[in-house]
């Protein structure tokens, strides 16, 4: 049986490989969530994006792309409080390969923006790949626009970064970690960083707020950095002993489904996470029933 399985997989894979050369845009478009286990982060990101249809499905020639990693804190990359710079660099590279005209990388940080961008290694990685890095120092009307949130429960309207509203494609690049108020912070929670509101206040009704902002603005693609997950004392962490090596990259066009998949790494069921339950209720996608493809590199 095992040998047969192996041969089957081999046949499917080689057929897939051959087919991808012929029809690069169509292959893999059928799966909702792509999961790659790999210690090579760059290869993992590329493979995960490939599993959900390849970058060409999300980025067209001449597109302006907004990329939003988690750069919330001034914290060195080894503590995994921020998205791995290699994930950011690989995604920016892929965007340009798909013909993007311009890629912006930014977050509205909790710590000082410049310190966080530099310490996290993301500024350098993004700039080396040719992206433009934006500091969000203050919430000015130049940078933010008020939009109404259709069906929002906590948020009726919110300020959103114009670079996202005016971009052709929006890629969400969260890191997966434990979060004291929200339970976990992955892709949906990461979108708090696109708003110009007083986000500390959102904590008073955090699950409604997170699901609302995800209704207001939808990312085209979410790629989760779960190479090592912070299992406690999040979202700041600050000790290697809090980390668990999971060597996983998750990609999905649905942020709720990407989060649901990442939630399992923590040994938590998606239904137990308030904002994921609300996301399903608010029509952001099923967090239990989705197609997934998993590959180990």
């Amino acid at each position, binding site marked *: 049986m095992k040998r047969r399985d192996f041969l089957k997989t081999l046949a499917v894979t080689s057929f897939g490989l051959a087919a991808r050369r012929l029809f690069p845009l169509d292959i893999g478009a059928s799966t909702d969530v792509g999961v790659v286990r790999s210690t090579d982060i760059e290869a993992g990101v590329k493979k995960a994006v490939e599993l959900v249809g390849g970058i060409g499905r999300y980025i067209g020639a001449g597109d302006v792309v907004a990329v939003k990693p988690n750069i919330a*804190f*001034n*914290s*060195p990359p080894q503590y995994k409080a921020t998205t791995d710079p290699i994930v950011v660099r690989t995604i920016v590279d892929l965007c340009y390969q798909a013909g993007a005209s311009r890629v912006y990388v930014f977050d509205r940080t*909790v*710590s*000082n923006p*410049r*310190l966080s961008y*530099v*310490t996290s290694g993301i500024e350098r990685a993004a700039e080396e790949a040719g992206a433009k890095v934006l500091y969000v120092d203050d919430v000015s009307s130049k940078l933010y626009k008020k939009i109404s949130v259709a069906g929002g429960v906590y948020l009726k309207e919110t300020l959103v970064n114009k670079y996202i509203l005016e971009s052709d494609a929006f890629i969400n690049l969260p890191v997966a970690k434990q*979060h*004291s*108020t929200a339970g976990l912070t992955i892709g949906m929670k990461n979108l708090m960083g696109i708003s110009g509101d*007083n986000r*500390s*206040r959102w*904590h*008073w*009704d*955090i699950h409604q707020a997170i699901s609302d902002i995800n209704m207001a603005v939808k990312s085209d693609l979410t790629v989760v950095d779960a190479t090592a997950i912070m299992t406690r*004392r999040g*979202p*700041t*962490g*600050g*000790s290697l002993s*809090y980390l668990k090596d999971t060597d996983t990259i998750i990609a999905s066009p649905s942020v709720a489904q990407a989060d649901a998949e990442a939630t399992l790494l923590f040994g938590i069921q998606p239904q137990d996470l308030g904002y994921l339950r609300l996301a399903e209720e608010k029509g952001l996608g099923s967090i239990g029933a989705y197609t997934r493809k998993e590959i180990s590199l």
Partner: protein
Amino acid sequence: MRSRALKGLKIGRILSQALFFAAFLFIYFRSLDPFAALENPFLRFDPLIFLTNPEANLPVLAVVAGLIVLAAVLGRVFCGWICPLGGLIEAADFLLSPLRKRNPLALRRFPKRKALIRYPVSLLLLGVVLITVFTPAPVLQFLHPNVWIIRIVSLTTVGLVFLGLLILFSLFARRLWCTYLCPLGALYGLLARVPLLRLKITTCSSCGRCDRCPTEAANYADKQIMPHQCLLCFDYEATCPTEGFRFTLPRAGKPGRQSAVLRSRRSFLKHGIELVVGLAVGGLLTGIFRRRITELLRPPGVVDEARFVENCLRCLQCVRSCPNQIIKITGEGYGFASLYTPHLEFRPYGCDYFCQVCQQVCPNRAIPLQTLVQKQSTPIGVARIDETACVVYKEQINCLVCEEVCPIPEKAIRYELADGSTTGGEPLREPKMVPERCIGCGICEAKCPAEPVAISVFV
């Protein structure tokens, strides 16, 4: 000495002043970038500033000793060729010379000024400085030229008032600050009295062409140059028709040697008296400023408030360099001893856990330069939760932003499940301080969404 050589020295001096002023400006503007983490060499390398914090400044001892030797060998060459404030004063003097010449109250019209040039008030001020550098009385901080030039270019109110004062001085005499008031100039002046190679008038046709010395160091009547006032500016020496200016050793001037020695002995005594009076005044000031002030939150690493007040130059480099802009200038209301010292106000970012910029730029190490681990474990103060303002206690809303943003890996804020529940039916989680873990970084205070703020850091 040849006129051409003297002219060359004058041009060299002007170029040197321009160069050092430009370097000063460059360093100043570069230092505004926190990532430059630049120590200002004009403050880092200085004999008077060195004395305020000798053990922390030990690494720069060689440079400071070099400056002292330079002054002993060449006299006040720092004042004439390097000092950026001196350069600024000279520019103001030049621009205002038409007004000064018409000023009926210009100092040149008062013959009694000569005694003040010989025994300037700056010596007394030097005395005050020399005793107060070891005490919390902030005297040097308000007399040091290199700190004033920084206050001027950073356009602080006091700096601009001082600049106005300098411009006013320019209406009365050239280099008035340098001749009569500057304690650093007085120190270099004292060193210049060491009898080495000095500029002298050897021949003279009494034409008076050279009688324009900016500090009036030269007494043309008896052809003496006071080394403690000579800035080696070479402004008019080249116009001497007899080429009478020479660098000579004291023995060379044979005639009247005895009287010169006597005179110098008398002047030494008079200088000594001024210094001693200054020391006494300094002692008195020390008594007045002994009061310790502890209610201000100081930059990270400061553990000894008295030492900090004593060592802080009030140059405000930390205020300008802090990437989070949380270091503020202390104004009135905290006593003269704390005037213009830095203190912390944590909004909007708090003191970053991984940032040490203020420690790196403090030119006098008043904010001690620590290792990152030391910095991350030295308390600035300790946070306290105000349960009457916190929404968890007051309105049964789950919040925990303070716990979330606490950068201590073990978290100095934890939560306890309370008996009640939120309006949404969730279990209520009350934040609790773990004071022994708290380093008072104030990030919780900066991010607390309650109004008024429900968590604050106290000394």
